C-alpha cells in the first residue's frame, strides 16, 4: 500500500501550488487572505509529512494563524468592509469575467516576467532533484553531541544550544519589527464589541486553556516537539483573542512593565551568554552540567517576550498612547 501515501502527498503538493496560484492572482484582498490562511494550514500538514512536527506547530500557529490575523487586521484598517476592489478597474469580457486590470505593466512585459519565472523554477527544480537522496548533513554531529546539550529533543538542542546565536538574533528581529510598527504612529481604534457577548465568552473560556497549553509546550520542548516559539505564539494568540474581545492593558501596566516584558527574552538570553563568557567560557557556550536549566530559563523568558510581541503587533499602536486608556 505504498501508493496511498504517494497519492496523498501528491494531492497535498498539487493543492498547495493551486492555492498559491489562486491567492496570488486574486484581486479581492479578503479572498487572498483567506486563501493564504488555508495555504499556511496545508503547509503545516506538509511539514508533518516531512517529519518536522516542531516546524509544523510553528507554521500552523504563526504562519497561518497569527499572520492571517495580522493581515485581516491590516485589511480592516485599510479598506472599509464591502469595498474590496474599489481601487482596481477591471475590464470584463462578455460573460463578466475579468480579463485584465488597467494597473500594472502591459501584456508583453508580463509575458517576459512569466518566462523568467519559469526559467527560475526549472533551475530550482533541477538543483533540488540533483541533490543526493540521502544527505544526513549535520544530523550525525547533533546526535553525537545531544547528551552534552542538556535536552533530548534535537530541534531544541540545535535552536537553543548549538545555534543559540541565531535564536538570539531572531528575538532581536522580532523586537525590531515591533519597534518599527510602533514608530508608524497611531492606528484608528477598532470599535469595542458588546460586553458579555459571544466573543467575550470565548475569550474567557479559551485564555486559561491557551495559557495552560503554552506552559505545557514550553515544558515539553526539551524532549518532544514544542519549545519557546510555539508556546510564545499560543500566548500571542491569547493576547489577540483578548484584544478582539475589547480588553486593553491598564494604564499602569502599559508603560514600564510592558516594556520590561517585551525585552526580557532578549535581555535574559544575552545576560546568560555574557555571564558564561565572564565565567571563563565562550559566548553562549553553556557548561553541560547546567545546560538544561539554562535552556529552560531562556525559553521561559523568550516565551513571555514572544507572546507579548505578537499580541502587541496585532494591537498595532503603542498601548497607552491615547491617554486615559
Amino acid at each position: 500500500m505504498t501508493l496511498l501515501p504517494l497519492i496523498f502527498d501528491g494531492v497535498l503538493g498539487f493543492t498547495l501550488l493551486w492555492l498559491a496560484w489562486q491567492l496570488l492572482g486574486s484581486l479581492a484582498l479578503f479572498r487572498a487572505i483567506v486563501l493564504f490562511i488555508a495555504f499556511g494550514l496545508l503547509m503545516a500538514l506538509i511539514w508533518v509529512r516531512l517529519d518536522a512536527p516542531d516546524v509544523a506547530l510553528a507554521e500552523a500557529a504563526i504562519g497561518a494563524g497569527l499572520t492571517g490575523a495580522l493581515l485581516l487586521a491590516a485589511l480592516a484598517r485599510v479598506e472599509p468592509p464591502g469595498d474590496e476592489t474599489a481601487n482596481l478597474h477591471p475590464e470584463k469580457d462578455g460573460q463578466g469575467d475579468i480579463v485584465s486590470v488597467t494597473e500594472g505593466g502591459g501584456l508583453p512585459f508580463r509575458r517576459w516576467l512569466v518566462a523568467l519565472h519559469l526559467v527560475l523554477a526549472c533551475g530550482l527544480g533541477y538543483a533540488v532533484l540533483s541533490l543526493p537522496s540521502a544527505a544526513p548533513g549535520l544530523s550525525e554531529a547533533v546526535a553525537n553531541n545531544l547528551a552534552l546539550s542538556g535536552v533530548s529533543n534535537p530541534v531544541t538542542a540545535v535552536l537553543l544550544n548549538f545555534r543559540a546565536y541565531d535564536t538570539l538574533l531572531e528575538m532581536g528581529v522580532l523586537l525590531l519589527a515591533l519597534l518599527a510598527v510602533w514608530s508608524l504612529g497611531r492606528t484608528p481604534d477598532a470599535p469595542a464589541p458588546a460586553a458579555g457577548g459571544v466573543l467575550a465568552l470565548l475569550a474567557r473560556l479559551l485564555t486559561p486553556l491557551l495559557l495552560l497549553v503554552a506552559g505545557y509546550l514550553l515544558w515539553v520542548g526539551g524532549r518532544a516537539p514544542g519549545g519557546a516559539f510555539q508556546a510564545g505564539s499560543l500566548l500571542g494568540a491569547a493576547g489577540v483573542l483578548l484584544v478582539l474581545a475589547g480588553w486593553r492593558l491598564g494604564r499602569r501596566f502599559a508603560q514600564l512593565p510592558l516594556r520590561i516584558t517585551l525585552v526580557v527574552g532578549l535581555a535574559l538570553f544575552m545576560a546568560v551568554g555574557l555571564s558564561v563568557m565572564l565565567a571563563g567560557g565562550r559566548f553562549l557556550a553553556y557548561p553541560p552540567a547546567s545546560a538544561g536549566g539554562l535552556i529552560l530559563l531562556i525559553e521561559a523568558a523568550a516565551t513571555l517576550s514572544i507572546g507579548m510581541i505578537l499580541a502587541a503587533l496585532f494591537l498595532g499602536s503603542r498601548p497607552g498612547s491615547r491617554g486615559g486608556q
Partner: protein
Amino acid sequence: MAIGELLSILLLLAGAVFFFAGTLGLLRFPDIYTRLHALTKADNVGLGLMVAGLALQADSMAAVGKLTVIWLLVLLAGASVAHLIAAAARQRGIVPWKR
C-alpha cells in the same frame, strides 16, 4: 482484520462522508446563513466520528483524552465563529434567503 480496526475504518469513512456533505453544502447553498449552518453542523459531526475512529486506534487513554479535547475545542470555536459571522452579516443587512 480485527473488529476494532474494521469499526475504526467505518467511523473514519462516515466522518469523511459528513465532511463531504458539509463542503457540498458550502458550495451549493443559497446564502451565508444556510452555508454556515451546513458547515458547522456537518463538520462537527464529521470530526466527532473521525475522533471516535482515531480513538479506537489510539495508543493510550491520554491520547483519547487529547483527541476528545480537540473535538470539544473545535465545537466551541466553530459555534462561536459561526455566530459571530452570522451576526456581522445580519448587521450588514444581508437578509436570509427565502424560497
